[in-house]
């Protein structure tokens, strides 16, 4: 099972410089936190989906579909119940609470979609190169890329350990909070130790590939800031500006 997000496609978004894509992602985050009402966030989400479609990576949405929906559902339900409002709809749910919940759901989902498009169109090696150009030290940039790489590995370990312990009769799905805590030790200990062992293996593998042997490192990949990056940055800035301006309208 491949748990990595990057999709090796040839698209205009793939061809952008990683720094440009980083800027666009951070810009979309900024736009998302500006708003609390659904309409502009819906617009933002639409733009991000178009961006993803341009990068031909929307297929990856399938893999986070459950996450997006459950976050949306949780957000809408909890805000509907807990947010105060003046227009009652039914039970203790108010119109304002519901709208706020929808807004919050769109906000978080937009950010996830934006991050997903970034990781689906950018190789971690490109991210490292981009960060180095932005004056981040190589070691730190590489550590960041390793962290991204470790996520799928750890998810894989977690799934295997859960299956192994369920096969011994551990009930990981039901029970009260106390029972739940008791199920954690048999899961966490093997996951932790296995990850630790993996990390140790990785350290040895990195060393044997000459990691850190020279101060000056070369790179097979090259990145460069081209006219298309300028266009993308300008478009992104204008969009962000419009969103900021719109903040006073909505």
């Amino acid at each position: 099972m491949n748990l990595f997000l990057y999709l090796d496609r040839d698209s205009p978004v793939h061809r952008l410089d990683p720094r440009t894509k980083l800027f666009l992602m951070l810009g979309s985050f900024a736009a998302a936190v500006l708003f609390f009402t659904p309409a502009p966030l819906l617009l933002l989400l639409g733009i991000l989906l178009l961006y993803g479609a341009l990068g031909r990576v929307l297929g990856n949405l399938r893999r986070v579909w459950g996450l997006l929906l459950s976050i949306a559902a949780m957000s809408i339900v909890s805000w509907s119940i807990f947010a105060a409002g003046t227009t009652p709809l039914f039970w203790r749910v108010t119109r304002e609470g519901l709208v706020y919940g929808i807004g919050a759901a769109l906000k978080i989902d937009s950010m996830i979609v934006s991050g997903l498009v970034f990781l689906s169109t950018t190789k971690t090696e490109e991210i490292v190169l981009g960060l180095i150009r932005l004056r981040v030290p190589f070691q730190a940039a590489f550590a960041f890329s390793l962290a991204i790489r470790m996520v799928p590995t750890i998810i894989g370990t977690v799934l295997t350990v859960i299956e192994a312990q369920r096969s011994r009769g551990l009930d990981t799905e039901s029970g009260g909070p106390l029972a739940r805590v008791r199920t954690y030790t048999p899961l966490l200990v093997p996951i932790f130790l296995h990850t630790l062992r993996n990390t140790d293996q990785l350290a040895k593998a990195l060393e044997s590939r000459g990691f850190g042997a020279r101060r000056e490192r070369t790179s097979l990949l090259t990145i460069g800031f081209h006219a298309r990056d300028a266009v993308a940055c300008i478009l992104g800035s204008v969009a962000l500006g419009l969103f900021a301006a719109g903040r006073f309208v909505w």
Partner: protein
Amino acid sequence: MIRLENLSFRYRAGKEPALRDLTCRIRSGELVGLLGRSGAGRSTLAATLNGTIPHLVRGDLTGRVRIDGEDIRSKRPRDLADRIGFVFQDFEAQLFSTTVPLEVAFGPENLGVDRSEIARRVEWCLSAVRLSHLTRKAPAALSGGQKQRLALASILALNPKVLVLDEPTSDLDPAGRRELLDAIRSLRQAGDLTLLMIDPETDEMAWADRLIVLDGGRITMDGPPAALWDHADALDAMGVKGFTLSKLARRLGLAERWPDAHAAADGIRRGGWQATPGAAERLRAGDHTRDGGEVLLELDGLAHRYPDGTQALAGVSCAIRRGEFVAILGQNGSGKTTLVKHLNGILTPTVGDIRLAGQSLRGQPTTVLSRKVGLVFQNPDHQIFAERVWDEVAFGPRLQGLSEVDVRLRVEEALDAVGLTGMGEMDPFILTKGGRQRVAVASTLATKPEVIILDEPTTGLDYQELHGMMALIQRLNAAGHSVIIITHAMDVAAAYAHRVILMQGGRILRDGSARDVFADAACIGQTGLTPPPVVQVGNRLGVPALTLEELVGELTRHAGGQKANSAEAPPGSGASDVGPWTSRA
């Protein structure tokens, strides 16, 4: 050239030294196989060659390692990376790049190699391991064999003169294993690479120039494979599997050396041996006493499609009877593990049904099913969590809500069964891999399942541990448990299983008695698997034998045969008459 001078090493936590006063010389261009039981010092020795010991793994190191005359004590692995390449068993942990070419480029990039030169090396290395067609793929999306070849390419890109391979094939399926060994063979022909390889399969190391056997941190044997041919018993005593065919030659009183089953069959015929008339019928007749229990598990048109669209199972139907010992064989990706995960409810069939004692598994949770169907996962480290062996084994019975008195009974019984009597107070994490595997089996056993399923129970075990584990499984089977194992070890399947299910592409290709399936060389060949040497020889001689004993027992020497060395002559006495074999033709 590598020189080890009075090399000793003790791990920081170790009581005994792992290497004791080791001295040896490895010439440039040699292919050296390192053999030995687990804990004999093979990996420790390998780790001293590139500075992993003492720089990444701490302990007391005395003596010297010289590479081309230079003492490397002060050198870290990264400083030696362009001279000593290191390929590990765990190929997952060695790969971390987004695409195949970038994985290969990582090493030379670290060494500051010029960009155009890196591009050249990437191209050359990928073609050397036959991965040039996969440059657009993500390393994570490759098969096991491809991943290990990619790991090899990524080390070759550093242009090392010495390549150390620490059990590179242990986690591979038979096809992946062959692909990797082929790649290594063609590398040998291409240049004067010095190769040091650790591999538990002695039979597959016959092509080495030299085999070094370690035991207790010392070199106990050192010489060309042909020299080890006559010492099968001595090797057994050191926990190393001797050449299977040499044991056969010895039992038949033939002072010959055979590189493969084909030569062995010819040699045996020349020596005047032939199948005893009625051998096949006699052997088959013995098998029939084995079946006859009632049907326990019934699989009916089982299909499974994973959420990502992979069709892992495409219509599997079969029945498992009480008391059977079944081996499921097939390459990785053929659906073996997916299949057994259905039997205790971890996975639910997309189509089809499974019945346990007539009752459908649908809707029954794993927590309940696990009491009847015990599944032991491949890696014991995915489940061991307790600080005492006792608590680990008691985990299942306690979850069933048994009283502490009953739990104690179950745990003691299970520990007895796996040969860990009285070890309850030990910390499972200080046990060997074989020991941890036993703890995992005991913890399943303690829940008293009717069916015990073991996924690759012998991976990572040495020769002695392997037979200890299989003898244990055989005892459980004799005690009435139905046993299902998944394995890549063909000799294990042949020697222990009654029935073999051969899988390919999510379907059952063949399901029959172990004898019939292994006798059908064409069918096995279709899956890319190879029967074990004894079976191959037997097939050529018309004896459908599964073990050495069966084969020897069903051969008779006819009077008209060419006069061979008399059976009384001590084996090996004729060694001077027979030259070393040439397996690297």
